[in-house]
């Protein structure tokens, strides 16, 4: 990391994958560091991506910490900076600074079953945890991944899911009925209840649209998961990323520093703002 926390390192766009199209398109970017400036990160951490003349955005690092050659970001087109990011080509240079935020406590989860529940682009922040867990499968119990999108066209990381299905139990869903769809039809929280994973010695990690997270947590509690067994990530509008600009706090916590990872036990002590 730079001595000046606000000054980004420069990195090169090495690969761009179109995950979904349409008004809220998602693209996955692989970013390399030919001039150095790469940094290690832990699962859950984020980085500030910079486009000069446009601004910065805080994005979860979607690649596993074990991957050293590049960093992966899956970004939904939403506003000024993300639209400009979507206009980039392979070879373009962006600014990047990080890693920021806290991490998923993977060490504490060793020996336990892991149940991932993701929706839409919310798969990206928990993807590094999934990858790390399956790569070190002997350290963890049963690994299950629930993931849903609006339609089969909107499913992210399609190619990776084929591979993942060999190493973990994958439960995909689409919101609306679709010809030829083999998986579950319905919202992610409903799919979760349908499959009813056991809370016994398990940890549930969820990320997605706020409304999905709300119902997933409710359903996990119905299934018998305790508040300490449920993990999620929160976000807020961010500018500095280092706990100084005063914008991203939820109660006493600056999300860019104390978050984005929270257990529900911790999160419910903060002011509720959904």
């Amino acid at each position, binding site marked *: 990391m730079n001595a000046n926390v606000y000054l980004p390192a420069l990195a090169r766009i090495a690969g761009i994958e179109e995950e979904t199209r349409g008004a809220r398109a998602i693209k996955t970017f692989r970013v390399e560091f030919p001039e150095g400036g790469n940094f290690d990160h832990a699962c859950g951490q984020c980085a500030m991506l910079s486009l000069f*003349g446009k601004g910065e955005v805080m994005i979860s690092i979607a690649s596993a910490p074990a991957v050293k050659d590049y960093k992966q970001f899956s970004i939904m087109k939403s506003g000024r900076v993300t639209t400009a990011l979507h206009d980039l080509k392979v070879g373009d240079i962006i600014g990047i600074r990080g890693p920021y935020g806290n991490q998923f406590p993977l060490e504490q989860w060793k020996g336990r079953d892991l149940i991932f529940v993701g929706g839409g682009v919310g798969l990206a922040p928990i993807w590094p945890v999934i990858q790390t867990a399956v790569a070190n499968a002997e350290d963890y119990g049963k690994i299950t991944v629930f993931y849903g999108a609006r339609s089969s066209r909107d499913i992210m990381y399609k190619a990776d899911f084929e591979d993942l299905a060999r190493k973990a139990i994958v439960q995909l869903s689409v919101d609306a009925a679709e010809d030829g769809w083999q998986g579950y039809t319905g919202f992610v929280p409903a799919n979760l209840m349908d499959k009813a994973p056991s809370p016994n010695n398990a940890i549930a990690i969820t990320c997605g649209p706020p409304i999905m997270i709300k119902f997933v947590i409710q359903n996990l509690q119905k299934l018998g998961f305790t508040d300490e067994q449920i993990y999620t990530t929160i976000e807020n509008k961010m500018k500095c990323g*280092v706990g100084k*600009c005063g914008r991203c706090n939820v109660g006493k916590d600056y999300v860019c520093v104390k978050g984005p990872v929270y257990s529900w036990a911790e999160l419910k002590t903060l002011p509720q703002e959904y």
Partner: protein
Amino acid sequence: MDTILKKERLGEWVAQIGSRARVFAPAYADGIWNFSPVAAGVSIELDHGNTVRPAKGFVFPQREVLYRFRQESGKAPELTETLPDTTPTVVFGVRPCDGRAMVRNDKVFTCGFKDPYYSARRDQVVFVGLACNMPPSQNCFCLSMGGSPHSEDGLDVLMTELDGRYHVKAITPKGKAIVESGAALFDKMQVPDGNAVAKVHADADKCPQRSLAAMEKIAAGLKEHFESPKWDELARACIGCGACTYLCPSCHCFDINDEITGNTPLTGERVRTWDNCQFPDFTMHSSGHNPRHDTGARLRQRVSHKLLYFVENHNMQQCTGCGRCISHCPVGIDIVRVATEVTGQ
């Protein structure tokens, strides 16, 4: 290090300092008191109440260029870091509430990630405080905030006005340096001087101020009454401007924006500017969701940040009782009254 400076020698001391540093002092211009640059050879009069703008601008200016960028189409951008120039700066007439606020600002900007822009300025600005013999404003409440009219926290030197002279106490090494540099001008402190200072300070402590219940009570009350309907009531008149936050000596929210100066090649600056949690879109998400979408929620954020969250994080209140937000709020929203009413004290 305690010394005495005769009032008629203040001008000389200022002039001496001015030969090696930029000097600022409160001046009355355009109907308000503000820190103004002191021209060479001009003396200063420390007879202000409190300045409208706080001393935080010296370490956290309203506009700070973080770095410049230059990018030719298709090529890598060049970044030029723009750390602040470190011309020595000495500021006179800083009230103890602004000094204590500096301690709070230090927590924000130097703990965790160290902010190099803040540190560059903080390390070389010398704050020469002036004790309050009387509350500068009817809205002062420094005592309730754990401070005092003669607190030394955050200051490098503290002056106290006595009869025809000032007690000058150097607190930090930076403070000692500027006092020692004017050594010939100062007189030794004698016992009667010490007694006079003690009396002035004791009298000042007894002057009536606004009063707020103790830190722990207010913090606990704010936490308990987070959902109180009183927030909406108390904020109903709020117009959503930045008077309270921009005049506050310990408010530190900022925005970062790119300001483009040229297009081919692309040139510009990444600039930090003060921002304000009372502006409606401060927390507006790109999705259109705004966690603090009304004045009640935003007032609650400001008051809770000052009197609860900062306490939870740093075991001290962020507010130091200067009263500027109360005096300058266009509609009379009063943090002392708000905190008291919401917590039911």
